[in-house]
C-alpha cells in the first residue's frame, strides 16, 4: 500500500495513503481531542475540537476529515489551535448544565475530560443555556438534551449501524436539537431500543435508565461475557458493582458484534436478580411444588430417567434446553443425552 510521510509537531511519521491527519497525529503520539469522530461511522467534521494547524492552509483544519498528504507539516498544539479548542469547549460548557457531581457519565465523559485537560471553566460567556425537559418516556433510555453537544454520533449510529434512522437533527442555529420525527417522545417513535445511541454518546445526554444513580463509572467492574439470549453470540461487558449486575455496556472489541446489540442483550439482563427466578429445585408432591435439596432432585430425575429408558427405550426420551444457558452447559446436555441416555433427541428453544 502506498504510504505518505508527513511531519507532526516536528516528528516524521509515515502512514498509508488515505489516512486522516488525526490518525497520523495519533500515530505520532500527539494528543488531539475528538468529539464527533468515530472510526466506525461516517465523518461529519462537525465539532471542530480536533482542529490543527497545517502549513499553508488559510484556516485551521479539522484533522478528522483531512487526508494526510506527502510532505504535510502539521502542528497540533500551537497557540491558535489551543485557543480554538479552549473556545470551543467554553462554548459547549456555556450551554451545558454544571452537573458533573451527579451525572452518571462523570468519569467517562469526553467533555469533562477535555475541560479538565484544557482547564476550561463553565460560564465564560454567561449566555442562554437550553432548558429542555428530561425525556424518560422510553423504558430503558433517558435523554437529557441539555447535556447534548450535538456531535451527531447517536443519529449516525442509529442510521448507519442499526439502519433505523429514528433520530436526526431538527430546528436550526442555537435551537438545533436531536429529535425523533416531529420531535415526538422516543416511546412514540419507531425506536427499537437497541441502545446503540446510548453506547456511543460521548456525554451524559443518553444514559441507561437502569444504571442511573447506582454506581459511579469508576466503581463499576466490567466482566466480559456472551449474551445468553440468542445464538448470535454477542459479547459485552456486565457492569458489576458490589456483586450485583447493574446492567450491560457494549464493548467495541467484541468480535461478533462490536458495540451493536439488540434490546434484549443490552437491557434484558435484569432477570439475573429477578426475585421470581428459581434458585432451588422444586418437586411436585401431592399436586404442590415443594422446595427440595439438589441431591433429592437429582436422585429423583436419575431414577425416573432410568425407569423410562428401561421400560420404553432410549428414544422415548428427549431433551430440550435453553439458549440462555451457556454453550458449555448445552454441550454437556447433549453429551449426556447421547452418551448417557443414548439418543439424539436434543433440541433447544432458539433453533428456529
Amino acid at each position: 500500500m502506498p504510504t505518505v510521510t508527513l511531519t507532526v509537531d516536528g516528528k516524521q511519521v509515515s502512514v498509508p495513503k488515505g489516512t486522516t491527519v488525526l490518525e497520523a497525529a495519533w500515530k505520532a503520539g500527539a494528543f488531539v481531542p475528538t468529539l464527533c469522530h468515530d472510526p466506525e461511522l461516517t465523518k461529519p467534521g462537525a465539532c471542530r475540537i480536533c482542529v490543527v494547524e497545517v502549513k499553508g492552509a488559510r484556516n485551521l483544519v479539522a484533522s478528522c476529515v483531512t487526508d494526510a498528504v506527502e510532505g504535510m507539516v502539521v502542528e497540533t498544539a500551537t497557540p491558535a489551535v489551543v485557543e480554538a479548542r479552549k473556545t470551543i469547549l467554553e462554548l459547549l460548557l456555556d450551554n451545558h448544565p454544571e452537573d458533573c457531581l451527579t451525572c452518571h457519565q462523570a468519569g467517562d465523559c469526553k467533555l469533562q475530560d477535555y475541560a479538565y485537560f484544557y482547564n476550561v471553566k463553565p460560564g465564560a460567556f454567561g449566555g442562554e443555556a437550553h432548558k429542555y425537559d428530561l425525556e424518560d418516556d422510553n423504558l430503558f433510555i433517558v435523554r437529557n438534551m441539555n447535556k447534548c453537544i450535538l456531535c451527531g454520533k447517536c443519529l449516525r449510529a442509529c442510521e448507519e449501524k442499526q439502519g433505523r434512522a429514528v433520530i436526526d437533527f431538527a430546528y436550526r442555529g442555537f435551537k438545533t436539537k436531536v429529535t425523533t420525527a416531529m420531535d415526538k417522545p422516543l416511546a412514540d417513535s419507531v425506536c427499537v431500543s437497541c441502545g446503540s445511541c446510548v453506547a456511543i454518546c460521548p456525554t451524559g445526554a443518553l444514559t441507561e435508565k437502569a444504571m442511573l444513580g447506582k454506581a459511579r463509572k469508576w466503581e463499576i467492574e466490567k466482566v466480559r461475557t456472551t449474551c445468553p439470549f440468542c445464538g448470535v453470540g454477542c459479547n459485552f461487558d456486565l457492569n458489576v458493582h458490589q456483586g450485583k449486575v447493574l446492567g450491560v455496556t457494549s464493548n467495541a472489541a467484541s468480535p461478533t458484534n462490536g458495540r451493536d446489540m439488540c434490546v434484549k442483550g443490552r437491557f434484558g439482563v435484569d432477570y439475573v436478580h429477578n426475585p421470581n427466578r428459581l434458585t432451588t429445585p422444586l418437586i411436585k408432591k401431592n399436586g404442590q411444588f415443594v422446595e427440595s435439596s439438589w441431591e433429592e432432585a437429582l436422585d429423583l430425575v436419575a431414577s425416573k430417567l432410568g425407569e423410562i429408558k428401561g421400560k420404553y427405550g432410549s428414544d422415548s426420551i428427549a431433551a430440550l434446553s435453553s439458549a440462555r444457558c451457556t454453550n458449555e452447559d448445552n454441550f454437556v446436555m447433549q453429551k449426556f443425552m447421547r452418551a448417557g441416555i443414548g439418543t439424539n433427541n436434543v433440541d433447544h428453544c432458539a433453533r428456529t
Partner: protein
Amino acid sequence: MSTLQQMRSGIEESYKEKQNRARIVVGLGTCGIAAGGNKVMEAIKSEVATKGLDVDIDFTSCIGMCFAEPVVEISLPGQSSVIYGGVFPDSVAKLIDGHLVAKTPVTEMAQIQIPRDASPYEGIPVMDKSGYYAKQVRSVTSRLGRTNPESIEDYIATGGYAAIEKAISMERLDIVNEVKKSGLRGRGGGGFPTGTKWQFVHDAAGSKKYIVCNADEGDPGAFMDRSVLEGDPHAVLEGMMVAGYAIGADEGIIYCRAEYPLAIKRLNLAIEKAEELGLMGDNILGSGFNFKIRIKAGAGAFVCGEETALLNSIEGKRGMPRVRPPFPAHKGLWQKPTCLNNVETFANIPFIIRNGGDWYAAMGTEKSKGSKVFCLTGKINQTGLCEVPMGITMGEILNDIAGGVLGGKKFKAVQSGGPSGGCLPTDKLDLPIDYDSLISAGAMMGSGGLVFMDEDTCMVDVAKFFLNFTQLESCGKCTPCREGTKRLLEILERICVGAGVPEDIDTLERLAKVIKSSALCALGQTAPNPVMTTLRYFRDEYEAHIIDKKCPAGLCAELLTFTILKDKCVGCGVCIKACPAEAISGEKKAAHVIDAAKCIKCGACVPKCKFDAIAKA
C-alpha cells in the same frame, strides 16, 4: 441550415416589426407587481380600448429602476422609447393622451429614453449617457426590462440560443478554454474562476454528471438573481446547456427558493417553450446532445445557498453543509461530478460564447473581469438593480447610480456581501469594487447586495442585525458557528442596552477569530465579518456604548435620555399628550420635566414639540 437558423430569420423579422409599432410596455417583475404594475396594466388596457387606439401592449421585467416602479415604457414608430416612472392607474390617461395621442412625451414623468432612428426627445435623459445608467453597462442585464421574458421569440430575436448553436459545433475543451479566457469568476459570492471549475468537472471521471444552478439567493437585500431569472430565464437555461455540453452532463437542476414564484413560473414556461422548439431535450438541434432541466424549489434556508447544503437538500436530506474536499466538481449531487454555478454566472455564459472570452475580459480589472450586477438598498435616493464594470468605485455607485444618500444626510457606511460581508466606511468609498479589494478591506463581493447606511445608523446595531440573521440561519452542525454566533449576538445585544463591559470587545474579537478560523462552512467562517469590520472601522462607537453608555447615532433606545431644555420650553403641554407613559409633567406656561424613571424612551414627544425643547442624547 439548422431548424433554429430557419426559425431565426422569421422571428427576427417580426421582432423588428413589433418594435416599430406604437407600443406600451409595463414592467412586471416582482418589484413592478408589488408596486401595483398589474393594476396599471389593466388601466392601460381599458384606456386603450375606450380610446380605440392602435397600439401594442406588452410586458417586460424589472429594468433595474426599482425606485421608479411601476414603470411603463411608451414608444412611437421610429421614435425614442420613453420609460416613465411612478405610473399609477390615475396617471395612465395623462401618459396616453400625451405620448400616444398628442405625440409629446410627458417629460415630468419620464425617467429615461432609449433613442432610435429619430433624434432623442428634449429634456429626457438618454439611457447609457446620463441618469441612472450613465455609469452602468448592460451586458448580462441587457434583456431585463427590454424583452418579454415569457416570449422565446423575443429571446431568439435578441441573439438567444445562438450560443448553444455555436457551442455544439465546438470542441468541448475549447468551450472550457473560452470561459477561462473570459476571466469570469463565480457570481455567487466565492469568486472561484468558472472556467477552472468547468475544467475540473470536465476532467472528473464518471459518465453521469450534473449541472446545478444555484438560485437560492438568501442574503437580505439581494435580488440580482431573482431579477435575472424573471427577466431573462432563457439565458440561464442556455448557460446551463452550454455548461452541460462542455463538461458532458445531460441533466440540469435549478435550485430556486420557493419564495420566488414568478421566477419559477417563468423558468417553467421557458423550459416548456425551449422543449417545444427542440432547443432542449433529446438530440438538441440534431447534434446528438441531450439535455434536460428541472426545477427544485427550496424551502428558504439561507444555508441551502451553500453549495454542499444545497446538494443535500436536492437529495432530500437536511440542508447541512458537507465537508469539502471532496468538492462538488468531483463528488457532488448523488456523489457524481457536478458543475454548480450561480444564476448570474450561467446567465453570462451565452454572451461569452457568442462574443468570445476576450470581449468579456476587456471589461473589468486585472483579476476581476467583466461586469457585476448589484442590488442597491438602504438609505439612498435610487434603490434598484445595476450592472457595473468591475473596478468601479463604491463612491461612483453611491453618488452616480444610487443618487446619493436619502434626505441629504451624511453617508456613514455600506455593507457589501450581505451577512457574510463587512461594513465599509467613508474612506473606502474610493475602493475599486473587485473580489480582492473588497476582501482586503474586510468585506466581500458576496452575491452583490449593497446596503447603504446614513449617519443615523448605529454600527453596533448593524452588527447585531446581521448576527441575528446568521445565528438564526446557522445550520447547527458545527460548534463554533452554532454556539459562537449566538454568543456574539448576546454580547452585541448587551452592549446595545448599556450592559456591556470593557472586556466585551476582547471577547468579541477572540470569538470572531475562532469562529472564522474553525467553522466548517463559509456561513460560519464569514459570520463574524460584520462584527470584525465594525470593530475595525467604528471601534469608537462600541466604546461609546460600553464606557459612556451612549449611542452616538441616537438609535439604541436604552442608552438614550430624553430631557426638556428649560430655556426652550414654553410650557405648552403638547408633549404631555404625546407621551404614552405619562412621564411628562409641568405647570402651564412653566418648563416641563420628564421623569426618567417613567420614560420608556419611545421618542414620541420629540417631533411634537414645536420649540425644539426636547433633547435626545
